[in-house]
């Protein structure tokens, strides 16, 4: 007899089949919990799921440079038994001839079962998802300019879940570029949906969190925040410290970039003030905001975060394709989704 938890997981799984993920608002909190559970399940025995997506093809349409994200999407599909086509860089595509994103995606959706897209223009993934819907092919947003990068947030959530066994009842510090950092905005907004998080927003005045993100925290009944300038003053109370890179491409003026780049650097001296189980996250690549001396500290979670990203992409790709992970419905992870 199918257990109640397996039934609930099956319902959630059926809701994800064929769906595109442009922003995390496309997923309910239950869906995100399901994906977190699946990632954990995959991590425990990768071989068990090695043929989940046999015969499937993922197309990665990457119109701008990316190392981690593209390789992560591709590795995820390869580890599930599927294959990968695609391009990295718009210069080798028909975009140089003036082809629209929509047309390219409509063409590719005839070849592939699922598409991951990265594009410098904000909203490109929504255009792609609408184009691919003609063929019923799901699209995953791999980053659309400074707008959304949902799978990075899934990686962040999975890392926090792995470290603390929960993604609520935490003090989460976010440090650096809180104005332009899309990963920061997305993480805050998503954690607000789960609730019970105290945010400590650490940034210079020039890079403060935008009003619309603060609005999301204030609209949450169980989350609150404080804005501070000094990392050292607050590091001792954090469960999670999310560091970000001050990105040169977000500045119109290089002098502003150079002035702010080194404002917040995490080093062993600051780590001494932190809790023994604090987790340091970073979306990578880092420039110099985390000293290399911190890498050996067990609290450094940013390379684990990369692995978690791949696991979450495995969970997501298989779920959107409707390919069930063998044995998942009878697993403890499935039961935890429904608790």
């Amino acid at each position, binding site marked *: 007899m199918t257990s109640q938890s397996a039934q609930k997981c099956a319902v959630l799984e059926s809701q994800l089949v064929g769906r595109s993920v442009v922003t995390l608002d496309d997923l309910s909190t239950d869906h995100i919990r399901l994906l977190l559970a699946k990632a954990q399940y995959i991590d425990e025995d990768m071989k068990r799921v090695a043929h989940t997506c046999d015969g499937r093809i993922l197309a990665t349409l990457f119109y701008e440079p990316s190392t981690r994200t593209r390789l992560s999407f591709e590795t995820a599909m390869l580890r599930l038994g599927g294959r990968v086509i695609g391009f990295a860089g718009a210069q080798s595509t028909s975009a140089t001839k003036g082809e629209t994103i929509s047309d390219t995606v409509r063409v590719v959706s005839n070849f592939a079962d699922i598409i991951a897209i990265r594009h410098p223009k904000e909203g490109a993934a929504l*255009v792609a998802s609408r184009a691919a819907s003609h063929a019923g092919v799901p699209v995953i947003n791999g980053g659309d300019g400074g707008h959304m990068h949902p799978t990075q947030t899934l990686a962040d959530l999975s890392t926090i879940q792995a470290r603390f066994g929960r993604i609520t009842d935490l003090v989460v510090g976010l440090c650096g570029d809180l104005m332009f950092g899309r990963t920061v905005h997305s993480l805050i907004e998503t954690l607000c949906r789960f609730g019970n998080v105290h945010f400590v927003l650490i940034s210079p005045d020039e890079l403060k969190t935008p009003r619309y993100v603060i609005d999301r925290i204030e609209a949450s009944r169980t989350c609150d925040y404080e804005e501070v300038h000094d990392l050292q003053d607050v590091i001792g109370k954090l469960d999670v410290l999310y560091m970000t890179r001050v990105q040169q491409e977000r500045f119109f003026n290089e002098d502003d970039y150079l002035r702010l780049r080194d404002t917040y650097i995490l080093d062993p001296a600051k780590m001494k003030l932190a809790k023994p189980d604090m987790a340091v996250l970073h979306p990578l690549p880092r420039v110099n905001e985390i000293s290399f001396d911190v890498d050996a500290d067990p609290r450094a979670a940013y390379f684990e975060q990369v692995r978690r990203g791949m696991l979450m992409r495995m969970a997501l790709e298989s779920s959107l394709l409707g390919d069930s992970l063998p044995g998942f419905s009878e697993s403890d992870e499935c039961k935890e989704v429904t608790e």
Partner: protein
Amino acid sequence: MEVTSLQNGIIIDHVPAGTALKVLEYLKVDPSRTKIALIMNADSKRYGTKDIIKIEGMADDRIDLDVLGLVARNATVGIVRDGSIVKKLTPTLPQHVSGVIRCPNPRCVTSTERDVRQGFHLVTLNGHQEYRCDYCDEEAKF
């Protein structure tokens, strides 16, 4: 020139001061082909100053209240028949508008992708309301 009072048409009152011409543009009313009286920066008890638009001969069903709500959310529309106001309409904020305004964000996909219909959705957060681009979530500018 003689400016007579309106006989049959509409009066759009409580338009934000200085924006009457822009409101006409959004309502797709061509001032060069329409009998219009504009009163700009008039005194307003409620808002300090306001614009008033009077259009002779315009049927009330030609006014798109969704578009008016978008650009002049506090405006009122008086329907005039035989020199008297017979009905007053108040625009409501539409949940979604498409094909009316363009996204101001140069990084938005709608700035380059051809054949994409511009769309904006109403967002309500902490009591204030604004329109955001369907594609990039940039706040609409009027």
